[in-house]
């Protein structure tokens, strides 16, 4: 193992970054979809939809980079995890199909608009739940034999994976609600504050339950989190959650515009870091490490060049797109 430039480690961080970018960006898109049933007024729904319509496509692209990057940089992990997560993956893809087309279709019809609103909400729920379940299924570990997935096609379904599924739905809901706070005005914004508060409380419940259950999945997780001296570092994670939660509650009470959303993002960063602590250095927990799954240096180096050049450019024009569509979105106020 060459310490000067350890490509698999670099690639693990690149993919972690892509997945996180996806979770954050599509998280609030999907979150808005999850909140759709609770906002039946047409004008409210138009605002919610319009607040993400110009950027959702870019947001979803991070999922393709996460999946495609895994395929390219850690093909063995990709080829083990995808069959292991077959049903949740297919469900997620179909959910994203329903959600994605609803963005375009609902403007093209008045007769079937309700149908596409349902598709938007249901697709978002299916996709979010499936992603959470997939996360739980990866954490609890999958059966591997001879470079292949060796389990059944229902192995992913456990109480733990359902718990992570529901928790992620709640988390996305929080991102969606705080995004809405930032992008809306008036009574819609007021309701978004209420939802943010309840979803934050629910998310803490989910986070607590997942955190308590995880160390019992694998002995290694327990050691990683609770053995001395690890605990001196890992105990920072729950502390950070408490601090951010207090700040978030205060920002909601003070009716801040931007802070709730960005503090919710910080909450996701902390959770994600916790996930990293549990998984490192495995890409398929407890059976395949990032070094075992890594594509040859020649593949990883070739792509690293592309990433180094393109990611800064991508971030720049993504920021530009967000900047163009910045500020509050209002219903039915056009230019003409």
């Amino acid at each position, binding site marked *: 193992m060459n310490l000067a430039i350890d490509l698999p480690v670099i690639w693990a961080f690149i993919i972690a970054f892509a997945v996180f970018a996806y979770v954050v960006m599509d998280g609030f898109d999907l979150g808005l979809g999850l909140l759709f049933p609770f906002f039946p007024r047409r004008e409210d729904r138009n605002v919610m939809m319009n607040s993400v319509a110009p950027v959702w496509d870019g947001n979803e692209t991070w999922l393709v980079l996460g999946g495609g990057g895994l395929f390219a940089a850690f093909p063995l992990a990709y080829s083990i995890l995808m069959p292991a997560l077959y049903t949740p993956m297919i469900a997620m893809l179909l959910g994203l199909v329903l959600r994605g087309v609803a963005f*375009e279709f609902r403007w093209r019809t008045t007769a079937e608009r309700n149908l596409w609103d349902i598709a938007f909400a249901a697709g978002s729920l299916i996709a979010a739940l499936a992603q959470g379940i997939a996360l739980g299924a990866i954490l609890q570990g999958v059966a591997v034999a001879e470079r292949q997935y060796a389990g059944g096609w229902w192995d992913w379904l456990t109480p733990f994976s359902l718990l992570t599924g529901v928790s992620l739905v709640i988390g996305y809901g929080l991102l969606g609600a705080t995004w809405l706070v930032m992008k809306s005005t008036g009574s819609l914004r007021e309701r978004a504050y209420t939802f943010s508060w309840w979803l934050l409380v629910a998310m803490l419940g989910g986070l607590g339950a997942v955190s308590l259950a995880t160390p019992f999945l694998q002995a290694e997780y327990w050691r990683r989190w609770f053995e001395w001296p690890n605990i001196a570092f890992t105990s920072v994670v729950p502390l950070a959650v408490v601090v951010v939660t207090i700040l978030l509650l205060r920002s909601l009470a003070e009716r801040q515009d931007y802070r709730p959303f960005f503090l919710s993002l910080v909450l996701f960063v902390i959770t994600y870091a916790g996930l990293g602590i549990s998984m490192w250095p495995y890409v398929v927990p407890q059976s395949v490490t990032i070094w075992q799954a890594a594509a040859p240096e020649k593949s990883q180096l070739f792509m690293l060049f592309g990433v180094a050049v393109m990611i800064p450019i991508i971030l720049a024009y993504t920021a530009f797109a967000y900047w163009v569509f910045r500020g509050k979105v209002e219903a039915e106020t056009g230019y003409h």
Partner: protein
Amino acid sequence: MFEALDAVVLARVQFAFTMTFHIVFPSFTIGLASYLAVLEALWLWTGRSVFLDLFKYWLKIFSIAFGMGVVSGVVMAYQFGTNWSVFADRTGPIIGPLMAYEVLTAFFLEAGFLGVMLFGMNRVGKGLHFFATLMVAVGTLISAFWILSANSWMQTPAGYTISAEGQFLPASWWEIVFNPSFPYRLVHMVLAAYLTTALVVGAAGAFHLLRDNRNEGARVMFSMAMWMAALVTPVQILAGDQHGLNTLEHQPVKVMAMEGHFTSHPDGAPLVLFGLPDQTRGEMRYAIEIPKASSLILKHSLDAPLNGLDTVPRENWPHVGLVFWAFRIMVGLGVLMLVLGVFSLFLRWRGTFYESKLLHRFALAMGPAGFVAVLAGWTVTETGRQPFTVYGLLRTIDSASPLAAPAVTMSLLAFAVVYVLVFAMGIYYILHLMAAPPHADEEGPAADEPTHAAGITPVPAMATVTGPKREP
């Protein structure tokens, strides 16, 4: 064993089904993105409002087609892993980076500028908006570059070594990306996308000319589309011929199936126009042939010998009937496109281009021809690659995921139900938009229902507070 076989067959059906739905949309949006860029450029250059109206007319259609292309494309990106995990493991070090480059250089570019292109006309200047349109168009072409490189590598693998675990490892990226069939396939496919779009635009124009041949928008789009059909079809036929010769060099078995040559012809092979390929008996029944014409086309010599499938072990045969017929459908449609293009030039010269109902009906009937030809062409090249995923090196049956047949059955059913419902509705909305005649002061996409009592100019349901940000 039988169950394993069934799961592979089901996985193939699923891939073919989801791919068939997917490829329809990029075939259209690659061409349409370029067309939109041309329209906007013409508007900026000439200032004629008809170009802006046409831009907005087709932009609405583009947004729907592009959305469907994106969501069906994400499915494809994950299906390598879910259904073809052994393929993914073996080819990941080579195919993976090509697809990663597609995401990095194309998908983000398209997605990043799509929002500005669709909704940003009033928010950024004209120049910047045109730049966004241009980036989306360039993005679709870059995307075609990488995905066709990956596909071509599966057809004509090059620049690799094979590891002890059976993984394909990169030896030369240049040879991998520019593998032998790639340049031909790229040109052939991009031209196919342009022609497909031209035929759709032409059909929409013809439809409205048949009702009112003084509609300026309809006249302009019809004329532009027919120029494309007339100019690009001959180039496409030439490109297809070159692609065929390249296939003969690198994948002769595919050409044998395309030509329906079950037997070898040592002194000049006939061109089988039609016939019934009989895979089990290994012969062409009821063949209508032109003697020695196949050798003339493929070898440029009447008496050149051509090998047949009798020189190939049966376990390496593709499904001949499928390849044979798909090829004839593609070529037949190509000939019809050429006739349309030549006919349109003739009527231009005669001065009845905008009046001839015959031309307009012909163009209308040819509207879907590009899609059918693209699907037929892909059937030829993909079915003709069988029974391998990586030609000659990795068999399809050895590429699939270790999945039980019921899992794949269920997902296949789910895809079938969702796709048929969703994409049928999407195509219906597109046809609905095309059925409306182009008119002056065309509205853009994402228009909500009219807010004015008059109700003709829906407004974008969006506005911004551009003043300084203020936290209460």
